[in-house]
């Protein structure tokens, strides 16, 4: 094995590294700056619309992990009343199959991702925790109407200058 390029390969590499000293860093200082996630993000929670849900449990049947638990009872107007709707977010793999399967568009993926908890029991979301309300923003995954209302995602590609 010979020292083939007389040290010029090393010099070229070092010139490239030196050029990078003058480029802006690409990191984001997390708690102070946050990037906007995608409109279709499969965030870290589920959001449930109680008015539209009929208790058919298609979502529970299509979950690969079996982490949705639904208990219903019959109501007066030939419908189901949902007594218990519990999702174990600790076992959920965030695949989104439940959201795609819902025939009544009553279940959404969440938009928030900062949902760390100190205890595993606190990750289980019950009926009240899952409710669609003003504070819990659903994401546009498989829900085009909600997707249209969300802000644009920040892309690292936007910082590249394209030479024409």
């Amino acid at each position, binding site marked *: *094995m*010979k*020292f*083939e*390029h*007389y*040290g010029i390969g*090393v010099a070229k*590499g*070092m010139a*490239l*590294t*030196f050029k*990078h*000293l003058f*480029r*802006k*860093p*690409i*990191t984001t*200082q997390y708690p102070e700056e946050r990037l906007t996630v995608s409109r279709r993000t499969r965030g870290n929670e589920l959001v449930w619309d109680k008015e539209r849900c009929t208790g058919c449990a298609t979502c529970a049947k299509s979950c690969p992990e079996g982490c949705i638990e639904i208990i219903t009872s019959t109501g007066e107007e030939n419908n189901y009343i949902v007594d218990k709707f519990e999702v174990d977010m600790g076992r959920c793999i965030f695949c989104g199959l439940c959201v795609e399967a819902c025939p009544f568009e009553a279940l959404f993926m969440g938009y928030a991702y900062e949902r760390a908890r100190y205890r595993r029991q606190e990750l289980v979301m019950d009926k009240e925790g899952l409710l669609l309300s003003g504070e819990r923003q659903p994401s546009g995954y498989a829900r085009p109407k909600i997707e249209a209302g969300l802000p644009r995602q920040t892309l690292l590609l936007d910082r590249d200058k394209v030479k024409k």
Partner: protein
Amino acid sequence: MAIFNYYPQTLSPDWPGGYWLHWGVFVVIIMAFVLAMVMGFIYLERRGIGRFQVRLGPNRAGPLGILQPVADAIKVLIKEDIIPAKGDKWVYWLAPVVAFVPALMIFAVVPFHDGALLVDLNIGILYVVAVSSVGVVGIFMAGWGSNNKYSLIGAMRAVAQMVSYEIPLALSIIGVVLIAGSLSMNSIVEAQDIPFILLQPLGFIIYFLAACAEINRTPFDLLEAESEIVAGFHIEYSGMKFAMFYLVEYCEVLAISAIITTLFLGGWRGPLLPPFLWFLIKVFGVFFLIFWVRSTIPRLRIDQVMAFAWKCLLPLALINMVITGIEVIALPPALLWTVIFLNLGIMVVLVVLWSKFFRLGGGRVEV
């Protein structure tokens, strides 16, 4: 005693207290300098390598991350001191000390200003070479006392590498000594009306590479190679002993930078700014080069490292020494610029020749 016959030469005329005051003041200066600069180097290296990699370095501990070395020091001090049960206890305990003390002793002969050294030995640079070889023993003791196969492999590689690179190191210094006419570091700086890097380009490159190998820096850092033998000889160390090894690494980088500045870049000499500032600027410049190399280049394998020392650097250093000797005797000092271009030309020719005919390391061994 003989030492009191010696002291009038080290004592500048305006030091009233005598030998011991001079010694005391300079010990304080050197300890403060080393500790402050090591902290500064740790911070600068991490921020600098971060900038080379399009990210910021650490910026959370204090404004702009300035307290990061302090945080590192506190972290290392409060960790539990684990001692392997079956290791050789005394060897394990003494290894960081044996590795650290020589690194600190080098600063005794580094001049900060004309005559401002701890002691102006007239064998200055030879003392430096001798003392820095003692550090190798410390590393081997660390590898042996840890009772760990990885440490032992690391320590053996370390000893082989450091011993082989001592020779080109010493030989490349001889060129500088021949031109300056003295081994004393103070006289070498005073003889540099133009910096010796121009007169000895090949010597500079050889010394730089050999010094990087001595202090186990990339591309020769295979004994603390994180991706192979996971930290080499200091795997089993934690707490204050690990802090000593960490400190040894940066202390030696500082020592090498200071020595390169003194030998090749003109020490504290420079036009407008105060001499101490020039010294710091040059030391930082050499350090910038060292960590620029670290962030770009992959590391070599042990047999390639040995081949590089014995087959490449050693003959080049010998040829450099012979040519410098011929120039010092035969050429008159008025032909300075001719000598500069002549040396540059010889360096290019030698580098090209060696690249063409030199084979780096063995291949596969038949088993």
